[in-house]
Structure formats: C-alpha cells, structure tokens
C-alpha cells in the first residue's frame, strides 16, 4: 500500500538517548481528529456554495446515503485495525442484495429473505477470514478473489438484470422514519453502539488492537490470533450483507452491481478517519466521521453539478491529504 507506513521504524536507541521521560502532552488542537475539521469545512463550503445543501430534505438524504457507507466502514475499520484489508465488501454487498431480492421475488417471507442476505455476507466474510487466518493468505489476495467471486455469482444469479419492486413490508426498512430520523440511520447507530461496546469495553477489542499492533506480541501473550482474524472478516462480511439488505430496500430494486465502489469509499472513510494501515491504532469514531465527510462531499459536489469522476478525484485527494497530515503529525511528535 502506498500509504502504509511502519510506525515502529524509529530506532529505539536514538529515542532512549533523547527522551528520558514521557514527552509533553500534545496540545488540545492536535487531539481533535483532523477529519472533524474536514467535516466542518465541507459543510461550510457547501452551505454557502451548493444550493439547497442545508435544506432539511437534503440533510436527511445525506444521512440516508451515509448510513450504508457507515455500516460497511465499521467492519472495514476492524479489519484495517488488525493490519488487513477487505476489498470484497462492495461485491458482497451486491451479492447479499441479490440473494435477498431473489428470495423476495420468489415469494419468501420478508424475515427469511433478510436473514438469507445477512447470512450470505457472513459466509463470504468467514471464507475470507478462514483463508487469511488458517491458510495464511494475504488479506489483499483473499478478499481480492472474493471480490470477483461474489460479483460473479451476483451477476449469474440475477442474469445481470435488476430485480425491481418489493413489498411495502420490506421497503419499510429503507423508508421508515422513526422520531424524525430515517431507520437506516438508526440501524447504523445501533451497529456503531454494538461495535463500540465490544471494541472498547471487552477483551475482544483489546485483542483486535493487540493483533494489529504486533501478531508476534499478541501470540506470545496467549491471544488466539487466528480466531480474532476470523471474527473481524466475518463481521465485515456480515455488515456488507446488512448494507446490501438496507440498500436494496431503500432503492426498491436489487441491482447486481449496486455495491461496486463501496470498498473504495469504505477504505477512504477509515483512512480519512484516522485509522492507519499499519494496524493497532485508530478507532470507529473517526470512521463514522470519515463516512460522513465522504457522503457530504458526494452530495455537495452533486448539487454543485460536479459529476462522479470529480467526486472520485476529490475523495482520492482527501485520502492522500489525510495520510500526509498524519505522517506530519507523527513525525513532529517523534
């Protein structure tokens, strides 16, 4: 990865000579994640420049779009924190949507169709996790393969065509509004809450950080490294499945390639949110903000009449900028 960097490269000997005690606390400004500044900056710019950006209807729309990205970014964060990557989530999202859509069109009950979609995502993720944790596949290769496989199966199952028109019961997932907030946003919030609990309050979280920090140290401390890896990829797959179900409900159509590009946006959200590829650092709060920044950016650029290619370019620039800023801060600290 071009943006990967090893933070442990600083020679210890040199540090020992120059720093006998804990270094001074960073100023309060540098404690606030940079992504928050970006968020405020874009809201301000679009508020002034993009017509209708600050309207309630548009803000609801942005949060709706952002909720699915947020869901898959949370899984991606766990994966990246262990030092891995999951390139397959876009395709898995499409496949899960296609499975759910097919079952609904075949007359299955809604809960069964939803369950099948979630299970599809979970199985894809578990396969990734198995290959990576037990057979020592590189995460890049394993999930890269899954990216093709899941996309291919989605296209085969649907004959490459969209499956439009679902029952109101199913559409309720994407369309309901609870206490003024769309249900997908609630779902994203619930996912955030559950992952927050496990990541910061339980041994599971401590293990994720340990595996990402150093697999060797984790192993020597008796941490079941394989099981941790298996679970983060399974969670990532499951959340891609959840994203697929919510997305086709909101769009009232299951398109077999609807998830394409989600892996790019999710990785961007995680990296912009301050979780580096070196692993063992970062957290889910930044990723949520990262997902928000990307959603705001896409929406605002749309309103200003700048098309998808421009959005892609700007997001790419932001990833690079996030890395540069992080490296600069890190170098200054050490």
């Amino acid at each position: 990865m071009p943006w990967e960097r090893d933070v442990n490269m600083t020679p210890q000997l040199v540090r020992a000579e120059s720093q006998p005690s804990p270094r001074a606390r960073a100023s309060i400004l540098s404690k606030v994640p940079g992504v928050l500044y970006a968020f405020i900056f874009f809201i301000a710019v679009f508020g002034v420049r993009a017509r209708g950006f600050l309207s309630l209807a548009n803000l609801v729309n942005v949060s709706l779009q952002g909720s699915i990205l947020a869901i898959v970014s949370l899984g991606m964060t766990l994966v990246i924190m262990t030092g891995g990557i999951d390139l397959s989530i876009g395709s898995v999202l499409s496949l899960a949507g296609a499975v759910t859509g097919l079952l609904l069109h075949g007359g299955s009950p809604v809960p069964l169709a939803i369950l099948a979609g979630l299970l599809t995502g979970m199985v894809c993720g578990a396969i990734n996790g198995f290959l990576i944790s037990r057979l020592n596949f590189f995460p890049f290769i394993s999930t890269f393969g899954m990216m093709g496989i899941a996309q291919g199966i989605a296209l085969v199952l649907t004959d490459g065509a969209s499956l439009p028109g679902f029952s109101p019961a199913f559409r309720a997932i994407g369309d309901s509004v609870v206490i003024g907030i769309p249900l997908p946003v609630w779902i994203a919030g619930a996912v955030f809450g559950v992952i927050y609990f496990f990541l910061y309050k339980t041994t599971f979280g401590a293990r994720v950080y340990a595996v990402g920090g150093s697999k060797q140290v984790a192993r020597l401390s008796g941490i079941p490294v394989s099981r941790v890896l298996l679970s983060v990829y399974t969670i990532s797959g499951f959340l891609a499945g959840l994203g697929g179900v919510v997305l086709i409900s909101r769009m009232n159509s299951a398109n077999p390639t609807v998830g394409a590009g989600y892996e790019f946006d999710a990785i961007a959200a995680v990296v912009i949110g301050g979780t580096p590829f070196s692993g063992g650092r970062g957290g889910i709060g930044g990723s949520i903000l990262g997902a928000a920044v990307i959603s705001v950016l896409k929406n605002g650029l749309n309103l200003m009449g700048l098309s998808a290619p421009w959005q892609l370019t700007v997001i790419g620039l932001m990833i690079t900028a996030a890395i540069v800023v992080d490296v600069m801060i890190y170098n200054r600290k050490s």
Partner: protein
Amino acid sequence: MNPVSGTVMNPESRVVLAMRGITKDFPGVRALDNVDFDLREGEVHVLIGENGAGKSTLIKVLCGAYRPDAGEILIDGHRVNISDPKRAEALGISVIHQEFNLLPHRDVAQNIFLGREPVRGPMGMIDFGKMYDDSKRILDSINVDIPVRTLVRDLSVAQKQMVELAKALSFNARIFIMDEPTATLTSREIERLFKTIASLVSSGKSVIYISHRMDEIHQIGHRVTVLRDGQYIGTLDVKEASLETLISMMVGRNIGAGEIRRRNVVKRGREALKVSGLTRHGRFYDINLSIHEGEVVGLAGLVGSGRTEVARAIFGIDPYDSGEVFVFGERLPKGSPAHSVERGLGFLPEDRKDLGLALGMSVKDNMVQASLRSVSNFGFIDFRRERDVAQGFVKQLRIATPSIYRLVRFLSGGTQQKVVLSKWLATKARILIFDEPTRGIDVGAKAEIYSLIDELVKQGVAILMISSELPEILGISDRIYVMREGRITGEFHRDAATRERIISYAMGKGREYDAAAGKG
C-alpha cells in the same frame, strides 16, 4: 556502594532452579554440552561468556523456545518439562527481552495485562478499574512511577523495561531473565534499574543476569557462571571473581587448537579507505580507521558494540551525523550505496539471505546484479557476456553449483557466500567489507573463504572484516580495531593482539588488563 550483594542474599538460601547436564545440538554444532546451572532464591546470578558461548541457547532452553537434547531442569526440586513458552510462564519463568514485547499504541496497563485482562460479566467486559489499579500497585511494588495510562510508545527504553518487569510480576514470575538489560540505558537509568532489581531479590525473586560489563557483575551479582564454546566452565562467588580469573575462564588456555593463518602477508599499498570522526548519535561515535591496499583490517567487539552499524554507514546504507569517509583520497558522499559501488566498495553483509542475495534468483543473476552496466550495451544486456562472467567466477572460486542458472536458495551457506563475493568481484571492487564472513558456514567452506581472502589480498584488495570469532580475527587480520559501545577502544598490530587483550578491550577493561599484564 553495592546496592545488592552482601546485603540481601543468604548464601544458604534455597535453590529454586537447577539445570543439570543440558545438551543441545544444532546441525553441525553442539551449542550446549552438558551444562549445569543453578539459581537460588533472592539471588542475582550473572551469566557470562564470549559471543557464541551458549548463553542465549541456555536461556532459550529455560524459557521453552528450544527443547534440550539431554539433561533435566528442576524447579523447587521437582523435575519439569518446559515444552513451550506458555509452560515456562506458568512455572514463573519470565524473560525480559532486549527487544520489547510491547504494543506501542496501547497504554501501560493494557500492555501489562495483555491477553489476561481482568473481566466481569459473561460478555468479557474488561474491568478497567481493576486493571489500572492493579497495574499501579504492581509498579508501586517495584518503586516505579509511570502513569498507567501513558502510551508505551511515549516511554523511554528504561521505562519500557520496567513495564516488562511489571508484566512479568503480574503473572507471579519468580525467575527473571535479563539479557543485557543495561545495553541501551543511561547511567542514571542503570542506577534505577539496579535499585529495582535489588527490591525484586529482596522480596525473594531470583534473577539470571546476562552481561558483558565487568563492573556490573561486581555491582549487582551474587554469583557468576562462565560458559565457553557451549561448555560449563565454572561458577564463582563474585567476591572471589577477579577480572583476570573471569577473562581466563572465558578465553581458555589452549589457544593453539585449530589455528587460522594467512599465507600472504603483502606489503601494504596506498591508503584505500579512510574514515575520520564518523558519528551517528546513539549508535557510534568518533570512528577513525584506515585500511591500505593489500591489508586485512579486523573489527572486533561484542555483539551490539556498533561494528555492523559502522560498516553500513561507511557503505552508505545508513546515514551518519558527522565525520567523513574517503576512498582513495576522495570524499565519498554519504548515504549512497550506488556511489560506493561506483568508487569500488563492496559489502558482504552478515545477513546474506536477507541483504546479500536474492534467494529466488539464479547464481548468474545474483552475480551480475551490481555490475549490470558492464555486461550490457546501451541498456541491453549482453546475455553471452553475462554468462561468460558468471561461468568464469564459478570456475575461479570453485563454486559448487550444477549450473549458473541454479536458484541461490538451493545452495549451501558457503557456496552462497562465494556468490556474494563474486557479485563484488564482478564490480572490480578494490575495498571489500566482510561482515561475519563465515557465520553459518561449515568448517571446510570456512577454510575456502579464508583462502579466497588470502588471494584477494595478494591482488591488493583492501579488506575490512567484522567478526565475532576471535581465532578468525586474530588469524586473518593485519591490524585489529576493537569496538565497545559505539567507540573504538583499541588498535593492535597482529603481533600485539591476543585473545585476552581483545576481550579485555571489548569489555572496557583494556587498560586494567594492560596494567596487569605489564606488571606480570
């Protein structure tokens, strides 16, 4: 003056650990041969020996990394089987590693309890309150004042060591193994560490302390055991262990066996390499050396004394802060291996497999790697010339390979070393830096490498050789520099160099040794 010895340990205290007749074989070498070692309650037992004497192997046997081929280990008088590191930990044995097994981005308490966090409830919720309180209590018990919420990456090396100690204490370790714990500490930090060790042993814990620093042995040790060439030489009370006694135990008296000698000692030519005032902070300081054509200069010293770092800086792999390097009188730009190669320098690294060779490439491709320009026209490789060059070296150096297309991976250590050498001969290098040229090579191949060095000297090549094997350094070098803790502490002509003298200088006791030798 002495924070530990004499004040605490009762010489009749209980033996907590006994190792009897430990033997460990590796292919081609017996690393430990019938070694005995015991450790008493509340004791600091120092383990010393030259590089390769078997200290590390013994420790690895004790902490479950290696299984001994023979011998037994008793803890509290009961025979135990230390099958793996987890078992060692359960038995209360803990190694304080030189490279720390800590996660830089987690805080002190999280590291102390890594993998063993206190939990409550069925979900595995971490009891953070207990974790931070316990961490603080453990640190307090060894009089260490580090905030338990500090990230480990913000700690100094000394503080990280304390966290490692606290971690060991948290699972009730009783036997602490410290491998050169003071190597990277400042004198104030060393003082603090010694106080901590003192409070450890006064609470009945025991410490196995590996050190190369003679003064430390007397400062904190109770007893000292000497190993040499994988054999147990003896155990002394530190009070009766004088410098001369320890050095003669480490070196042995029969030096004549298996002597290495060079045939060609040629008249030295122009000054080929001159290094003046080379300094890299934290690594090495004010290095001055010079090598002439047709001369082999040895760089001796203990592992970690900075020899390899100096060589890497000269060749341009690593930067340096000040000083200059001259090649045939011309200043060599720093930090550029490409310039070094152009000016006729070659570097044969210690870690052949990582830095010297592309294992997955053929003999031929490795040989021409540094001299592609000379086998190509306008950027196009002349395959015939390339093949001729490679076959020439195979014949000239008697390289045992079925063909020049054989992947280097499949060759023996000695043969691989010859391929690396060919690579530099192909560049027509006039100055070669050998870092541990015979490490991991069998005896026959060693002799061949020595005769190749001999041959190169005759052709007027200047050679800088780093070696931890004293017979090799003494036998091959015309002159020897000795390094200790990043500085050159002595320079000897081959006639003035003896094993004892070099070891004394490498351990920082050169002047005392010379004074004693002068008297005697």
